[in-house]
């Protein structure tokens, strides 16, 4: 019998084009997602090198980072943003790449539309010039973010030169308590292993609590692998994965679906496969989580207090805690539930899917957004928006006082008009609470959609289970 292999080992082996003498490997890339911010210089490089795109039909492009979430019919008013989006469209036309434009209802955040279109499938290697490409790992696809030079490399060769990462298993045992979500799991993971804990590893998430998640929840967990330092996160494909992909536009045709499904299921990590590192977390210990600082590892439970740097023995950590608290305008030992918010952002590639909007709408229904709060809902894609409207979620949100926007990355990184003003505090379902991430001087608290909706209603950080 051959040595038991992990899911990562199997996908790696199945994509090995050749091994170089220097220890690196050429790895085949099955699918490539492209957006406007990290691609123009790559296409320019192709032009300079007089090279073409090897597999235009393995590439899917859309504009998401730079586009407005209001008044779409007026186009993009910022000339720099417009030039970037127009450049992408022009590059796609020139190279025969499918481009979903702002007016296409399938347009949305790359990491939402890949799975939605069935472009993302188990066992694939998928890359994109965006660190949250790890999202697609929820399907058992090896997916990771790359820089623009590598975007160019993939366009020209459909491969990347890589060194194999180590295997890490994060096992979430037991049952998740009621009202605790995928976002809480992943925030707990980042708090546990730290933002550099996964550096050099591909993380595979295992255990009952992971298996019990929907595909949407699994995507939320894999999405934030990069916040734990890992370029890729993976979950073994199972019946839920097969069911989710059935009948989607890019999914295998009916006559090939059984063959594909059999292959997908065979990719699951073998019994007894070896991991370089294993971390165990008990799901029943997790309660809704919130960040207090400026790093995604600055996580506390909602019933906790703002931490006190005086309790930290490591001098470097203490210094960065003091800096973070000052930036966040917080006083040590303040109960989290007393922190008032000014804005609420529900959306992003972490939490902009239909399930996220449903969770937020349950909290919003028949309640009003607090007077001092400005809350926006930004669906992850045109299709998520359409689905939500069919379910009447838009009406619930609008009646509560939320703004209902057009799809895009929006306030997750604030490249468009949606941003925080200095010192504004935001309950956000996105993935990064870095200084200035949502606007210069803006203060971000990361949390789940239900928690963000609860913060909107109460006007301060709140436990969604108590609403």
């Amino acid at each position, binding site marked *: 019998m051959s040595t038991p292999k992990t899911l990562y080992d199997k996908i790696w082996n199945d994509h090995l084009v050749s091994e170089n003498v220097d220890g690196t490997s050429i790895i085949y890339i099955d699918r490539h997602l492209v957006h406007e911010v990290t691609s123009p210089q790559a296409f320019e490089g192709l032009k300079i090198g007089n090279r073409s795109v090897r597999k235009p039909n393995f590439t899917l492009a859309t504009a998401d980072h730079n586009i407005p979430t209001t008044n779409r019919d007026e186009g993009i008013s910022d000339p720099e943003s417009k*030039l970037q989006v127009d450049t992408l469209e022009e590059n796609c036309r020139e190279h025969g790449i499918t481009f979903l434009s702002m007016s296409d209802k399938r347009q949305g955040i790359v990491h939402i539309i890949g799975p939605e279109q069935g472009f993302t499938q188990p066992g694939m290697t998928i890359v994109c010039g965006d660190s949250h490409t790890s999202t697609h790992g929820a399907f058992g696809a090896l997916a990771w973010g790359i820089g*623009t030079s590598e975007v160019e490399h993939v366009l020209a060769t459909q491969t990347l030169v890589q060194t194999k990462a180590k295997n890490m298993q994060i096992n979430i045992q037991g049952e998740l308590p009621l009202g605790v979500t995928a976002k809480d799991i992943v925030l707990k993971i980042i708090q546990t292993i730290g933002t*550099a804990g996964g550096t050099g590893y591909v993380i595979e998430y295992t255990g009952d609590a992971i298996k019990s998640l929907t595909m949407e929840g699994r995507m939320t967990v894999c999405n934030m692998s990069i916040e734990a330092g890992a370029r890729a996160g993976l979950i073994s494909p199972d019946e839920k994965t097969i069911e989710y992909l059935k009948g989607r536009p890019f999914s*295998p045709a009916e006559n090939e679906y059984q063959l594909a499904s059999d292959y997908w299921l065979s990719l699951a990590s073998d019994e007894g496969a070896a991991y370089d590192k294993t971390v165990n977390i008990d799901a029943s210990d997790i309660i809704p989580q919130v960040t207090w600082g400026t790093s995604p590892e600055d996580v506390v439970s909602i019933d906790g207090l703002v931490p006190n740097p005086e309790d930290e023995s490591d001098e470097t950590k203490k210094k960065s805690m003091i800096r973070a608290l000052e930036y966040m305008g917080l006083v040590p030992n303040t109960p989290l539930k007393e922190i008032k918010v000014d804005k609420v952002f529900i959306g992003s590639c972490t939490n902009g899917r239909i399930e996220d909007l449903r969770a937020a709408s349950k909290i919003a229904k028949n309640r009003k957004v607090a007077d001092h709060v400005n809350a926006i809902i930004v669906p992850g894609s045109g299709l998520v928006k359409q689905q939500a409207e069919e379910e009447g979620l838009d009406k619930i949100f609008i009646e509560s006082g939320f703004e209902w926007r057009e799809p895009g990355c929006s306030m997750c990184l604030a490249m468009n008009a949606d941003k925080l003003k200095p010192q504004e505090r935001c309950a956000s379902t996105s993935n990064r609470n870095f200084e200035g991430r949502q606007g210069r001087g803006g203060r971000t608290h990361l949390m789940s959609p239900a928690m963000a909706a609860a913060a909107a209603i109460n006007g301060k950080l709140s436990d969604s289970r108590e609403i």
Partner: protein
Amino acid sequence: MEKFKKIESNAIPLPMVNVDTDMIIPKQFLKTIKRTGLGKNLFYELRYDETDAPIDSFVLNQDKYKDSQILITGKNFGCGSSREHAPWSILDYGIKCIIASSFADIFYNNCFKNGILPIKLDESEVTKLQKAAENSLSFIIDLENQKISYFDKNINYEVSFELDKAKKTSLLEGLDDIGLTLAKVNHISDFENKQKSRTPWLYSQQIK
């Protein structure tokens, strides 16, 4: 890509941990369609105030570090987004070598694509070098021999560093990665043929 040559320069001390790519180059500068011209906006929010005036206390605004080609910083440098604008802005500023106890994966990888040498050292070594950098001592970075050296009160200190052989060659020779891979295009075609028979649905995927 330009070949990496021996560097002789003082070094900018930036003793912060988890410096993320939003801090290195904020999003408002990602709207460019060029690789050049980002150096003036490197560390923008640490470097300039709300009125775009330089903040005197920030290290990059101190005259003595104006021409430094080396940055010495804290662990997990370059975490966050995959934006290659981060190494582009660093290079455009004139920094060709970054020393830290650890780097985020994507950033680390992006450095080599742009001729920047990221050096990983033990935290205690980095702390010593930080001190030397604060005193504005001059360092020599010798990639060929994998050595950092500097003189302090007439004593010559040498620190060696580890580096993956392929990455070292790529920097020293300024290799064109795409050209190297395309030289193996036959392997790629062979792989595609093999994959097409093993997982045919990957090749029949169509937009409906």
